[in-house]
């Protein structure tokens, strides 16, 4: 297990800090742990372009040849379209991609995505910064 984690397939990028800000919407901060950044390289198996959030799946192969399928959550299709994504064009099943994001709180092969490096080296955002939707660093009321 230790070997699997330490392989190049999965890098827990502890030095990659994330700003605690940005969009609106369902609480990514509740489902995902901002203290568990993840970076994965693998082969895209499926993209589910639906609202309120798009999902995609990536096969990651470890040094022993064992394959694990990871699930990533991201922005809805309309937001992605404004970021330059084109459905079924920008990224297709079979493409080798690198994804950065943060792991789900249950520790499974599930994470929310932030940036994707495409097969041709281009980088595009696919999901919000860590903690989005969880209320940020200060409540709306002053704590008395």
């Amino acid at each position, binding site marked *: 297990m230790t070997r699997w984690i330490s392989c190049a397939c999965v890098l827990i990028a502890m030095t990659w800090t994330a*700003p605690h*800000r*940005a*969009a*609106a*919407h*369902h*609480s990514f*901060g*509740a*489902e995902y742990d901002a203290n568990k950044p993840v970076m994965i390289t693998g082969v895209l198996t499926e993209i*589910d372009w*639906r*609202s*309120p*959030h798009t999902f995609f799946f990536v096969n990651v192969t470890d040094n022993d040849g064992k394959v694990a399928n990871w699930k990533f959550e991201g*922005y*809805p299709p*309309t*937001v*992605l*379209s*404004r*970021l*330059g994504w084109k459905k079924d064009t920008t990224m297709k099943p079979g493409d080798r991609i690198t994804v950065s994001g943060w792991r*789900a*709180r*249950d520790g499974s092969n599930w994470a929310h995505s932030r*940036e994707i490096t495409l097969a041709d080296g281009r*980088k*595009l*955002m696919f999901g*919000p*910064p860590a903690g*989005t*939707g*969880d*209320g*940020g*660093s*200060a*409540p*709306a*009321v*002053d*704590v*008395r």
Partner: protein
Amino acid sequence: MKRYVVAGALMVVSLIPAVAFAQPGSVVPRTPDGKPDLTGVWQGGSTVRGSWDDANSGLGVGGSGKNPDAPAVVGSNERPAGREGAPYQDWAAKKVLESFNKRGIDDPTALCLPPGVPRSVILGLFPQKIVQTPKEIVVLYEYMHTFRMIPLNAKHPDDLLASYMGDSIGHWEGDTLVVDVTGFNDKTWLAGTGTFHSEALHITERYTRVDRDRIDYEATMDDPKVFTKPWRLTSTLMLREGARVQEYVCAENNLDPANFEKLLKEGAQITR
């Protein structure tokens, strides 16, 4: 002669700041009746001029990474720096904090419900389109696919049913559109995690197009059942020429409530 030259030079110098700070194309567009024309596609919560791409680079809303220095647009359920604390009564403030400490898993929009006012106006991830006519102004929000109709110089109906987006009527005070909103249910958050309200909520909004690119927005929220005094907040809407309001059907595949339930059941540490 020399005196005139000096005076002229001083006049030119005195004009420099105004020229330097004037925004290109900063003339406010007007309708044939002389009112400021608010028609256009706008992004809430931003102060950056330019296209959607220009303004949302870097770490901003979904940043493209083209400009890592582009400022982030603060989310509608976060408290922007400098905003005063919402003036909730003590019991109500505790309820707001409970939602904050639960990281907003009780956010009504997690159930795909309409976000209400002013949240729909001040959020920046999705665009909103204002369509202005002499008698009525219509706002179309991509987020949750909602709309508001704002008849001008009209009265609220006597038989209002409580609603998520409320009932809006508007009038012009000089160059400012003033919108009176009432008839709310108690199922939305106003501007931040847990910022609930009662059906007594009454909002006065003010929209002032200060130049070609920018509308200054102000919302004063009055709800004597939960506040100690009216809560006033300000924000900005920025023109996003070329951006389109598209279809967003949240109920299509909403997995978040089930995810929250699963994580809580399995004992995941969600709360702060």
